[in-house]
């Protein structure tokens, strides 16, 4: 009992501290134009896409489930984009602005600090999902897969963004320039998303198979396609969900290792 108590206290303190850091970060996002600007820009992008899909005569010939799949993929894609931008600046940006020193002087350990940054990016995704939900509802109105689209976008998107946020915040902990991490994370995001432009034949080739197996975003899209367009059940989604959970675990491990490298070096 006495041996377990410090561990429990340590665990709860880690969670409490990381949530404290996350709350502070979220407030910064909300009160700063930079942080909230992405939410509004994402809403505009989703508005344009949804309006185009539902009002353009040629595009309106697309099946409703195809439209729903496009909007859900886009919302997860935008979530990743926002996660890359916010996560890239999380630690390295503080080094540049010389505010990391004061953060490290607080009684919050480095692990809690980095974990808090990841929670904050995840909170931005939740906001992104809340913004996407009305579009998913309106595009999927009358279809039988509207609810599934919402549930799967939320769960798959949360897993994918959580992994990506941990990866980017981990990189940010290692780097000394926030801008370089942001650009690097955007390059990773484009690397994950751009092969969706591949033709069908190439997607079925060995390259496409490797890309689909390696890219977490491809796993999200394949699963959304399977649920929304092909109306397949949860059992079929298990390999995709498993791959995303593995991605989250690996990214979390990377972030935990990167935490050790959080130092005051770099910046101006």
């Amino acid at each position: 009992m006495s041996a377990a108590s410090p561990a429990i206290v340590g665990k709860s303190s880690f969670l409490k501290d990381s949530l404290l850091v996350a709350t502070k970060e979220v407030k910064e996002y909300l009160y700063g134009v930079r942080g909230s600007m992405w939410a509004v820009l994402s809403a505009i992008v989703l508005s344009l896409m949804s309006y185009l899909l539902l009002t353009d005569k040629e595009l309106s010939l697309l099946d409703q489930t195809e439209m729903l799949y496009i909007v859900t993929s886009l919302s997860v894609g935008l979530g990743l984009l926002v996660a890359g931008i916010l996560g890239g600046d999380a630690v390295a940006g503080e080094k540049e602005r010389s505010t990391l020193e004061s953060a490290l002087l607080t009684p919050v350990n480095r692990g809690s600090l980095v974990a808090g940054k990841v929670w904050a990016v995840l909170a931005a995704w939740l906001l992104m999902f809340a913004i996407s939900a009305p579009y998913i509802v309106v595009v999927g109105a009358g279809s039988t897969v509207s609810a599934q689209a919402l549930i799967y976008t939320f769960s798959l998107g949360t897993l994918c963004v959580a992994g990506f946020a941990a990866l980017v915040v981990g990189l940010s902990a290692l780097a000394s320039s926030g801008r370089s991490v942001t650009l690097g994370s955007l390059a990773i995001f484009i690397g994950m998303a751009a092969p969706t432009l591949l033709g069908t034949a190439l997607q079925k080739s060995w390259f496409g198979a490797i890309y689909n197996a390696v890219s977490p975003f491809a796993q999200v899209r394949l699963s959304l396609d399977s649920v929304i367009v092909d109306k397949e059940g949860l059992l079929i989604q298990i390999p995709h969900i498993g791959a995303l959970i593995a991605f989250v675990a690996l990214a979390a491990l990377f972030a935990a290792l990167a935490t050790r490298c959080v130092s005051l070096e770099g910046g101006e």
Partner: protein
Amino acid sequence: MKTMKLRIALLLAVVLLAVFSLAGPALAQGAAQTGAPYRGQVVAAPGGHGTPLKLDTATKKISDTAGQYVKLPATITNTSNGPVKDAVAYVSLVDVTKGQQAPVDLEDWSAHRAIIVPSLAPGQSKDVSWSLRLVKGGNYTVYANSIVRGSTRASVGQEVPLFVKTKQNLNPGGVLPVALGVPVVAGAAFFGPVFLRRKNLAVYER
């Protein structure tokens, strides 16, 4: 200042590239639907020994709306005196809409196009079925085929007429309030407090 502008331009380019990488396939798909139909279906070579299989499909016309799923049931019978192994049964679809006659690539229409029948004893029959998602409106003819290893002529089932009613998902009334409302509400919710906070700070500074 110049560097800052350069950074903003670079960031904007990356964001646009990311958005178009996601939206591109949708636009491409829309354009492809109005383009020239796919041609290039392989026709079984005549002559040689045919497939010892008989395919039967109900010839009743199938009709439904685009976006819905329909079933094409068929029965495969081994008409030979010997067993048949690893028979492959698949469906073919031909657009017979006036002016658009062409074979259709079934990729978007069916997730599982081929059915493998591991073995059929002499005279044995097996019921199979394909699920087709009706992608585009028009008049079509759908039929089942089957081949076995070593055969040079595919066994072809009866032609089944298929009518797909076009469904335009035009919904400007439904999407407009959301398309305009969400950015406005998000803008007000996020920028409002920032604006008020800065205004209050300006009062204190004075």
